[in-house]
Every structure is written in C-alpha cells, then in structure tokens.
C-alpha cells in the first residue's frame, strides 16, 4: 500500500516528518534573510539585538544599488520581449512545420539551457570584446536572449502542441485570413504558455550572474553583479535588505502567476 496515502501507517509519519524537515530546509534561507535584513547587528548576529530599518535606508540612499536594479529591470524586460517574440515564431515553425530535421533544430535552439553558462559566458565575452559590444546594454540583451530563448520556446511549444489546430482552420474556413486566425484564435488560446514564457525569460535575465560578471563594466552593472561584488568584499546587511526585496518580488510574481493562471483558465 505504498502509494496509498491513507494506508501507509507508521511509514506515513516518518515520511511526513522527513518531508516537513525538507520543507523547512527549503524555507530556511529565504525566511532567514528577511529577518536578518531587519536586524540591527552590522555583524549579522542572530537573533539580532534589536530591529531596524537602517539597512533599507542605506540601500535606498546608495544610487548605485538603485541604478543596478533599474539596469537589470531594463535588460530583463527587453530580453523577455525579444525571447517571447522570437520564441513564438520558432515554436510555430517547430510544432507546425513539416520540414526535415525539426528535432535537430529544436535541440540546437535548446542547447543554451544545457551548456554550462560559464562556457557560453567566456565565449560571448571574447566575441563581444572584438565586436565592441562588451559592457553595452545591447550586448547584455543579446547574450541574455540567447540564454532565455529555451525558456520561452518550451512553454509556448508545449501550449501549441496542446492546441487543436482544426479550430484555427475553422476560423479560416469561416473567412478569416490565416494571420487573423492566428492572432485572434490561436494566440489567445495559448496565452498561458506565452505568459509563462515571458515570466521565465524575464527571470532568466534578471537572475543571471555568470555572463553578467564577465560583461559588466564599471558604468553598466546589473543587480546580480552588484550583489556579487558586495558579497566578495563583505557580508554587509545591506545585501540582506536588497535580497529581501528580491524575495518580495518573487512572492509577488508567484501570486500574479497564480491569479492570472486562474483567470486565464476560466
């Protein structure tokens, strides 16, 4: 009865206890960092001697943090738009096309996801140095779009595979042009896939560290590069404050995703 939740007996207690411990382990760093950001100890003593907002004040008083966050937001937004647009076109071709070698091309487009990022990072770094794109917003967006493309293609292609194409054909039979049918029938039907693609490609850029470390210049650095630099010099609680805001953003993103999914599915 090992797959019967109600008939597991004593084993259920053991397994549930273990699962609860793992859940605590998964939550620990996230909760800890938020508590730490309100602690008054500069040396990160925990539990903190008192509570304070000064790390947040320090964070917002430092224009380099704000600038890094804005840079990240800008690059991630452009990356998400590009990746979803290119991924959408590619997904249609991969799912609907009848040409040979589709599987190979799909594999090629998904390779950036499996190749260790550090290999791509030094390759694109060397390439951009020669092309004069190193340390530019355009360079960042291109490199991040390469990395984000698989995360855009997978959900869109999956949604498209689950969409009954005869509905689109029906619209064409009823007089819609193929483009109209795609825009007004197919795209709205696969919107959950498109939406997931946008979130995932945004996060792929927003959280990206390795390429960013190589590409960043003193005048252009993303938030992960800023955090990376601070981490290597000292473990100031200001990082905890910045991290807590990132956790808040993640939570907001999760809530928005859940709500939108519910709304889109009905």
């Amino acid at each position, binding site marked *: *009865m*090992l797959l*019967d*939740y109600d008939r597991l007996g004593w084993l259920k207690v053991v397994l*549930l206890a273990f*699962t609860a411990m793992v859940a605590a*382990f*998964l*939550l620990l*760093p*996230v909760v800890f*960092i938020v508590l730490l950001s309100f602690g008054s100890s500069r040396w990160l*003593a*925990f539990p903190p001697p008192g509570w304070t907002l000064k790390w947040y004040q320090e964070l917002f008083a430092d224009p380099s943090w704000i600038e890094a966050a804005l840079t990240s937001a800008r690059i991630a937004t452009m990356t998400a738009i590009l990746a979803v647009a*290119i991924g959408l*076109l590619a997904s*249609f*071709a991969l799912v*609907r096309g*009848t*040409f040979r070698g589709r*599987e190979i091309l*799909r*594999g*090629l*487009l998904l*390779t*950036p*996801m*499996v*190749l*260790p990022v*550090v290999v*791509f990072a*030094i*390759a*694109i770094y*060397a390439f951009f140095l020669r092309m004069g794109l190193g340390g530019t917003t355009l360079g960042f967006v*291109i490199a991040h779009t*390469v990395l984000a*493309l698989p995360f855009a293609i*997978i959900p869109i292609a999956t949604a498209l595979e689950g969409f009954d194409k005869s509905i689109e*054909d029906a619209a*064409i*039979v009823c*007089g819609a*042009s*193929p483009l109209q*049918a795609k825009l007004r029938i197919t795209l709205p039907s696969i919107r959950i896939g498109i939406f997931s693609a946008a979130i995932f490609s945004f996060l792929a850029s927003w*959280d990206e*560290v*390795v390429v960013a470390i190589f590409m960043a210049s003193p005048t252009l650095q993303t938030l992960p590069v800023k*955090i*990376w630099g601070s*981490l290597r010099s000292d473990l100031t609680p200001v*990082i*905890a404050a910045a991290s807590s805001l*990132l956790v808040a953003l*993640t939570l907001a*993103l999760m809530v928005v995703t859940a709500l939108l999914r519910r709304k889109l599915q009905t």
Partner: protein
Amino acid sequence: MSVEAQQGIASKRIPAGLGGLLPALTLIGLFFVVPVLALLLRSVTDPAPGLQNYAALLGDGTYARVFFNTFLVAAVVTIVTVLVAFPVAWMLAIMPPALASVLFGIIILSMWTNLLTRTYAWMVLLQRTGVINRALMGAGIIDQPLPLINNLTGVTIGMVYIMLPFMILPLVGTLRAIDPMTLRAAALCGASPLAAFRRILLPLSLPGIAAGGLMVFVMSLGYFVTPALLGGTSNMMLAEMIAQMIQSLLNWGLGSAAAFILLVVTMALYALQIRLVGARRAAGGA
C-alpha cells in the same frame, strides 16, 4: 469556402514554416554557435597552434585535482539530492491536494528566489559565527565551531539546496504515473512493505531517478556561483577555474581548452540523458 481559405489550409501542409525559425536560428547561430566555435579554435591556436593547452591541462597534477574535485562534488551532490528528494516526491505524489499545493509553493519560492540571495543566506548561516554553529554550541552538541563553509560541506549544502527542486518536480511526475494497484497487488500477495518498496516502487521509479539524477549531475559539473562562494580554495571546481584563467590570469588558450573539456563532458552526458528519456523530456525537465 473561398479560394484563399483553401490556400490558407493547404499552405500549412507544404514544408513551409521554416521562415519562422529564421530569427531564432540567426540569434543562436551568430551569438551562440559562432562564439563557442571561436572559443574552441582559440584553445588550439592561443598562444601558438597545437594541442599544448590540452597537454598542459591533462598532464598537470594541479589541474587533475580540479577535475577530480569537480566530479567528486557533482557526485556527492547528486547522491544526496536523490536521497533527500525521493521521500519528498513520494509524499508529494500521494498527499492530499491542499497539502501538496502548500509544499509546491515552498519549492517554487525557493527555486524562483534569486540565486545569489540563497547563496548569501547560506554564507551567513554556515559561517564560523553563524546561526548553525551557535545553535549547535548552545545546545552543547559541539564545543568548537564546525568548519561548514569554504569546504566540501558548504558546497554540498548550498548545491543540494539549489538542485532539490530539479529532482523533486520530475520525480513527482514519475511516481504519479505508477499505478497504485501494482502495490496493492503486492501487499495482497503478502509482500512486506520493504519488499514492495525494493521490488516494485523503486524499480518503477528508477527511470525518473536516473533521468533527474543525471540532470543534477550535469548541472552540478558546470556550476559556478555556489561553489565559488561556498567552496574552498583547496576544492576548486572546473567552472571556477575556467573563470579564473580568463578573468585573473588572462590565459585565454588554457581557459578555452578547459571550457571545451567541460563542454564535451556535459554534451556527452546530455546525449546519454536523451537516450534515457527522449529529447523532449530531457530538455523539458529543466
């Protein structure tokens, strides 16, 4: 039915649609394939044509230790991740939906939280004067702080933390696909829980374990951030060494060669993964 409509339907049967791939292929070709090939070329031409970079990497004991460490850390991380993930995935597959969605929420929260944030938290938690050491000393379990960071322990804790969702989530799918009747049948035939686990549940979930484990292993092999921050200098991993060769030593030839070795190993294991589970699932699993 109008003529255009008929053409519209017919046009999708023709092997067209390749045009839609053009932007993606241009992007990947120009900014992924070309740079990676250029790097490969550099590994055999910088500073002089020949294979001396590979000879240096494979013939030197210092580098051999880095390769060994990389595989060691990846193997340890994979084994621990599989052992921790299996019971959780098992429970997730059969627990009531309300409870499962809470647990899924926690997993997604940890997975979506910024990588550096999570690593920073572990740096603070595991340091000599960190919470974990203080708690253990306060409880009287130890009287000296344990070295939990800048060594294998630190990397393993940090990496397992990151890899767990990648193992748990696909494994839930595998376990849910197993028909509970097979286990009921085993129980009816008199199999003890242990026998049913060993002879039915484990073998049936083995494909999922193998696929997930291989993915965790491949991802761990090339990981950079967490080992660089939580690991020690004495157990440096390959990705960190590559970054160092390029960034600090500016030794492009050696760095490119090391990167190419990492690429070959990763791609070979990835090919194995595809043979195990098929192309779609291999890529979709991440």
